[in-house]
């Protein structure tokens, strides 16, 4: 009985720990995918570990009947497949977070620190402190519109992770390609305020003949980073 209570306490603690460790800042903004997905995934993993350990200790690799086979199938096939499924959803969800980008300390920390700095007047900081983008700010600004934009971001992100962990990156950190106008226009274009200022040359902006950063980059750089760490 005491063992069962202990087991329950451990399971509950583990199930809630991912929420505490990776909690979102505002309570009214709880993401249901994170809120429930992380708990379900933790429960699946904890159950899986318990099933595998029980099966290992009890049967030691022997298939003595339907119960031993069922436990084995549950522990090494069904629950791992479930955890991969839930895990993939969470991977896509969490890979968009600012905290995720920031986890590559050597390369990205300076960009995120600038963005979160209330004194900074960089474009990233202005968007962040004014909540022009509610969350996932890195991802929103650096991902092009639509499904292809998401796929491209994930593909390039995997490459970046590889380069980071193999320490094959070089300073200054540069964008792969010039920052596309579309990534600004997907939010700003055609709003009344934007048309009032940009209406006369909007076709040039849409066609990419004029870059948004040609004007905005001069007064407010995208990020305020020392030159040796990153090019602007």
């Amino acid at each position, binding site marked *: 009985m005491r063992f069962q209570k202990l087991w329950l306490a451990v399971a509950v603690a583990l199930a809630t720990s991912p929420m505490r460790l990776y909690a979102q800042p505002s309570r009214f903004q709880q993401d249901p995918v994170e809120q429930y997905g992380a708990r379900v*995934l933790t429960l699946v993993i904890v159950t899986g570990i318990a099933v595998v350990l029980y099966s290992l200790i009890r049967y*030691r690799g022997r*298939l003595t009947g339907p119960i031993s086979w069922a436990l084995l199938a549950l522990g090494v096939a069904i629950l791992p497949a479930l955890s991969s499924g839930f895990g993939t959803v969470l991977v896509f969800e969490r890979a968009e977070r600012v905290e995720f980008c920031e986890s590559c300390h050597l390369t990205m920390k300076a960009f995120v620190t600038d963005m979160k700095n209330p004194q900074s007047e960089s474009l990233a900081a202005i968007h962040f402190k004014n909540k022009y983008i509610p969350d996932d700010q890195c991802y929103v600004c650096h991902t092009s519109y639509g499904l292809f934009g998401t796929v491209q971001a994930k593909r390039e992100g995997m490459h970046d992770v590889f380069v*980071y962990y193999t320490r094959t990156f070089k300073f200054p950190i540069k964008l792969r390609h010039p920052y596309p106008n579309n990534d600004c226009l997907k939010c700003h274009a055609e709003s009344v305020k934007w048309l009032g200022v940009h209406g006369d040359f909007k076709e040039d902006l849409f066609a990419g003949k004029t870059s948004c950063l040609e004007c905005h980059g001069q007064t407010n750089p995208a990020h305020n980073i020392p030159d040796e760490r990153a090019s602007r």
Partner: protein
Amino acid sequence: MNAIKKLDTDPVASRRLLIAAQILALIAYGLGLQFLLRTTGGTVFVFSTLGPVLVGICVLILAGVTIHRFLRSHSLFSYEIFQPGEIVFQQGEQGDCAYFINSGEVEVVVVENGQEKVVAVLREGQYFGEMALITSHPRNATVRAVNATKLAVLGKKNFLTMLNLMPSARKDIMHTVTERAMKTSASQ
């Protein structure tokens, strides 16, 4: 390939493979927990690339062993060759087939208090492994090839069907089973 060949001749290999699958599954779970507790580029990369590979290997091992066991228990005189000293089955294992000696010799070994004792040597034309199929108890002895031995394997289902269809064979086999059971208990 080597593992599959080993699986064909040594039931211990299937146990080892299943234990390996369970250890790989534990590693996969560990990667998942690491990703949950600390989401970084590294943990996401490892979880989303290495994790599915590990799970895939686990599923392949489980499927391979299950199919192998099914085919074995439904085997209709498939042949297996054992080299001298190779173990056909071990005492305490669950039995899923009987063996008929086509050529060569095997010794029947009982382990008592950690000491091996050879209780019988069986030759061409004789059979063994039938007792576990009739009683559904684990193997009561280890059988080891003395020299190069060719065995015909009859799966449990087909063995029991044979007993039902051939009363004379059943009588003969039951007589042998009783004799061997008495011999084993006498040796203990």
